[in-house]
């Protein structure tokens, strides 16, 4: 051995060593090894030996990387045998390669030594855990004694694995007590149990055992296959062997599942040739694999195709024949048609479902299922505005007469078509008329709420043949202990000025249990209304008799009712020319209501209600020109609740709006919570949205139990174009109301939400149902916090989304309903209306100039439109409902929409802060008349316009 030479400035050995190391770094392992061998041969030393071993190590790594496992192992063994001192450095590689090449003996041999150091023992066990796949070889490996625990465990595992993959086994067969949880073979136990659960159909347990596997262990390599079997779908990540195994275990089920999934994706992309091809493939696959579900599959395909508006012939051709139209089909179709908001045809289909279900024996003709169906259909029809419903009914009846009914795609005969063709009579179109549906439901189900809904419908239906009084009578007959129909009948009689009859109904209601506050209030209100009638007729003597009856009512002394009664007495005194009495009463009213402005407001409203006209009222009107903040606020807070209580209009001067807006913008005017609530409600009804906004903000900042209501009112005070923010307020309010079990408020919010959307509100996918309203904690906190803190009144958005820019829910004209699929006729330029101002720019060419450029769409809005068009498959949505459907399918789109809406540049009217304190007091003669507050609620039939 040549001793180490001291390094010189030009040491050739050092240079060669450097060269070899560079080659290793450059991954030229073969070159490095050749050079290292030559160097060691030429100058054997410790240093050159070390370099040689490094070169071997690099070469072995390179072979492993190229999957030359056997060659790498052979080289490793050679190096270790030639250079035993390299065993430490190459030990892990030797073990690893032994496992991979199945050289179990080499792998486990060290474990036979009971004195093996712990570190090496652990390294060997680790290699077994991660690398060993041939447990049978381990079970028979001669390198270990036959009774070695590892051999015993491996034998048990091999047995159990063979059993569990060959047939059903009991739990005892896979208990494997020989395998401890610390054993390097412990993961095999989990795999065996996972496979046992797989074949037993206990999928959740199977997943649990798979999750317990060490991801680096050898058995974990089978986990992806097991998961693919559970999902019944071979994953693209599996090897060829893995896919084969999945196929062998599942048969062709995975193939069918894939075909169905692909077909669903094709449906979501819309009509295309590809769709029909996928239908054909899915049907063929189903026929081959599971013919027993082919009937259902065709029914589902037929319905999806109908909803997608595919031509029936193309679908029939793709399916290779029609679907069966039984109860299952009609129910499926009806539900799908409901999903596209086609209430009328959904009802037609529900009727067909009912007929088919009874024919098939699913339920009896008079069973409770029918009652549910009738009510469900009535609910669907109620979502259609009455005018449109009447039009649809007419159209459908004409179609029935001409034989051109709604076509459910039955090109071949179906059981129902046969039935219909045998009948000479026109089928009863009861399903088109909510009142007939309610009648049928009431005959089958004894439920007072059903009558309540029926009466509610009758009242808004506005059709001469539908008599709400008749419904109320039926309700009272069916539920004699229920006072509600009697109250309605009393109100109805009052509307006709049949006060005595109304009082008789009240008497009957009182006989049931006179402590009901609604009944008590009704009697008082009725007597007051009778008094007003007599005063309108200028009959103070009759009014005097009414006053006697009113005075006998204990409820007449409640709240501020005495003030109102006094105002009626004032009118009576004026009619009798008893000025002194009138002045005395005026003074008492002033004292009761806390100020002259409040008194004047109440008196003038009563004057209007009683149709009293006299010059004396001019003195009252002068009081209304006062603009002391405190007096006006008191006037509103005291008189408006009276108006609600006795159902009379309270007149508020229009000028007060700007005053109140200015005041409430900066102060809450020291109102308490109830006062703020009254102010907000009064402002909303009068249309003073900013006032309502500011007051609701104060209410929110006060905290307390009325938060839900303030949030709801805040939502209603926002401009309609800020649809998203309004809906968030409604949702948050509903969530808070639900938490305190105020379900009346929840219902009120749901009604308001529907009314937001105009005449089609009930049918819109945006229309909230009671069960849908709500919000998670985080969002609720965010919304409440935002509304609490945001004080500035927002301005209208220019972007006409979701009904923005349309007054009071009008969404444009609809024209004639379509027969097959009744949807509103889209307003063609809807989305871009407000981006073009033709008055300013459309005349450019007439004057010889270039036509003006349209205003640029903000970039983030343009990007949003592009995204919407892309997600819609290249079409621009033409209604908010389509956008909502898109947003439901793509949650990220909803987030982007809301983000853009929140930051849209808002333009609109200038700040209303225009009141000048030096301005002259408002003069009644110059200004328009007052705006009524709380217009009298009309009950009974609405007048046709």
């Amino acid at each position: 051995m040549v001793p180490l030479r001291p390094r010189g400035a030009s040491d050739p050995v050092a240079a060669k060593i450097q060269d070899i190391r560079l080659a290793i770094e450059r991954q030229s392992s073969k070159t490095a090894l050749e050079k290292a061998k030559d160097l060691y041969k030429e100058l054997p030393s410790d240093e050159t030996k070390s370099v040689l071993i490094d070169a071997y190590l690099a070469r072995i790594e390179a072979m492993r990387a190229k999957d030359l496992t056997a060659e790498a192992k052979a080289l490793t063994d050679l190096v270790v045998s030639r250079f035993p001192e390299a065993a430490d450095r190459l030990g892990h590689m030797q073990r690893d390669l032994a496992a991979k090449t199945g050289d179990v003996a080499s792998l486990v041999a060290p474990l036979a030594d009971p004195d093996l150091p712990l570190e090496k023992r652990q390294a060997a066990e680790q290699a077994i855990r991660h690398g060993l796949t041939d447990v049978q070889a381990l079970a028979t490996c001669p390198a270990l004694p036959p009774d070695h625990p590892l051999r015993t465990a491996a034998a048990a595992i091999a047995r159990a694995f063979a059993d569990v993959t060959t047939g059903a086994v009991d739990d005892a067969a896979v208990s494997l007590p020989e395998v401890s949880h610390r054993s390097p073979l412990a993961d095999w136990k989990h795999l065996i149990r996972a496979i046992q659960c797989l074949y037993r159909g206990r999928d959740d347990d199977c997943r649990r055992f798979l999750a317990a596997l060490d991801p680096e262990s050898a058995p974990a390599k089978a986990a992806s296959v097991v998961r693919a079997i559970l999902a019944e779908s071979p994953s693209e990540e599996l090897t060829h062997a893995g896919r084969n195994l999945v196929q062998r275990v599942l048969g062709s089920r995975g193939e069918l599942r894939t075909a169905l999934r692909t077909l669903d994706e094709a449906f979501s992309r819309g009509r295309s040739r590809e769709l029909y091809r996928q239908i054909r493939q899915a049907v063929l696959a189903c026929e081959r694999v599971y013919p027993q579900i082919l009937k259902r599959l065709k029914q589902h395909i037929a319905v999806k195709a109908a909803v997608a508006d595919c031509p029936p012939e193309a679908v029939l051709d793709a399916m290779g024949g029609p679907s069966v139209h039984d109860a299952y089909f009609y129910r499926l179709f009806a539900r799908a048609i409901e999903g596209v908001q086609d209430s009328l045809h959904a009802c037609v289909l529900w009727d067909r479902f009912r007929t088919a279900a009874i024919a098939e024996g699913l339920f009896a003709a008079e069973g409770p299922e029918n009652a549910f169906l009738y009510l469900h259909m009535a609910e669907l029809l109620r979502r259609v505005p009455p005018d449109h419903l009447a039009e649809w009914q007419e159209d459908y009846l004409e179609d029935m007469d001409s034989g051109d009914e709604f076509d459910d795609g039955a090109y071949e005969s179906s059981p129902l078509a046969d039935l219909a063709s045998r009948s000479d009579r026109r089928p009863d179109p009861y399903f088109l008329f909510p009142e007939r549906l309610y009648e049928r439901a009431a005959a089958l189900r004894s439920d007072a709420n059903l009558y309540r809904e029926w009466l509610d419908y009758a009242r808004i239906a506005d059709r001469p043949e539908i008599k709400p009084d008749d419904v109320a009578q039926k309700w009272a007959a069916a539920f004699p202990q229920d006072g509600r129909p009697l109250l309605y009948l009393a109100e109805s009689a009052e509307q006709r000025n049949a006060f005595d009859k109304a009082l008789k109904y009240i008497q009957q209601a009182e006989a049931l249990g006179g402590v009901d506050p609604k009944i008590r209030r009704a009697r008082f209100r009725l007597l007051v209304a009778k008094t007003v009638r007599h005063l309108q007729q200028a009959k103070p003597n009759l009014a005097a008799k009414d006053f006697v009856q009113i005075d006998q009512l204990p409820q007449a002394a409640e709240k501020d009712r005495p003030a109102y009664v006094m105002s009626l007495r004032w009118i009576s005194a004026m009619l009798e020319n008893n000025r002194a009495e009138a002045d005395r009463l005026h003074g008492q009213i002033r004292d009761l209501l806390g100020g002259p402005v409040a008194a004047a407001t109440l008196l003038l409203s009563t004057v209007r209600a009683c149709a009293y006209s006299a010059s004396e009222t001019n003195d009252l009107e002068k009081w209304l020109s006062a603009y002391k903040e405190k007096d006006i606020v008191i006037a509103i807070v005291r008189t408006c609740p009276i108006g609600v209580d006795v159902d009379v209009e309270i007149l508020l001067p229009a000028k007060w709006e700007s005053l109140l807006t200015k005041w409430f913008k900066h102060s809450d005017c020291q109102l308490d919570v109830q006062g703020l609530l009254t102010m907000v409600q009064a402002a909303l009804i009068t249309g003073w949205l900013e006032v309502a906004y500011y007051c609701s903000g104060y209410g929110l900042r006060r905290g307390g139990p009325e938060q839900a209501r303030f949030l709801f009112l805040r939502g209603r005070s926002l401009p309609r174009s800020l649809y998203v923010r309004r809906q968030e307020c409604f949702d948050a309010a509903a969530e808070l109301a639900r938490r305190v079990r105020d379900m009346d408020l929840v219902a009120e919010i749901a009604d308001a939400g529907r009314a937001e959307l105009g005449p089609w509100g009930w049918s819109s996918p945006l229309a909230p149902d009671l069960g849908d309203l709500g919000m998670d904690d985080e969002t609720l906190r965010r919304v409440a916090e935002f509304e609490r803190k945001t004080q500035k009144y927002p301005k209208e958005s220019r972007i006409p989304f979701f009904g923005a820019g349309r007054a009071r829910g009008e969404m444009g004209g609809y024209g004639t309903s379509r027969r097959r699929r009744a949807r509103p006729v889209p307003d063609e330029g809807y989305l871009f209306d407000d981006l073009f101002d033709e008055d300013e720019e459309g005349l450019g060419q007439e004057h010889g100039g270039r036509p003006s450029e349209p205003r640029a769409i903000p970039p983030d809005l343009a990007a949003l439109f592009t995204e919407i068009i892309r997600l819609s498959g290249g079409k621009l949505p033409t209604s908010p409902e389509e956008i909502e459907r898109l947003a439901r399918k793509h949650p990220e789109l909803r987030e982007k929409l809301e983000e853009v809406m929140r930051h849209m540049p808002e333009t609109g009217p200038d700040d209303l802060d225009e009141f000048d304190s030096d301005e002259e007091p408002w003069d009644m003669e110059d200004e328009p008349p007052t705006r009524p507050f709380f217009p009298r609620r009309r009950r009974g039939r609405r007048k046709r316009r």
Partner: protein
Amino acid sequence: MSAGSTKKEQDPWSVLGVSPEADDEQIRAAYVRQVKEHPPDRSGPEFERIRDAYEQLKDPYQRAKYLILGAPADKPLESLLDSVPCPRRFVGPEAWLTVMKSERKESQR
């Protein structure tokens, strides 16, 4: 071939073990039977499932509502397979070992 798995949705009839045509008496009897097998103190979550199922079915009107509106209208087509038993075939240990060895080779690439 194994008994296979049936991925049936847990409709209230299945939970109680009755057919959709069962009447009030049969439903109640099934409920009592199930509760005896899964009392609340021993099988809390299971008992709650049974109780919820009974609440849905005991009123004929609610039963009708579930029967008619229970299934969602737009469920995917592949859910049709949920009602069909899925037989999983035994293929012996070799196929599984081949997979593990081939997975091993795949992971080396």
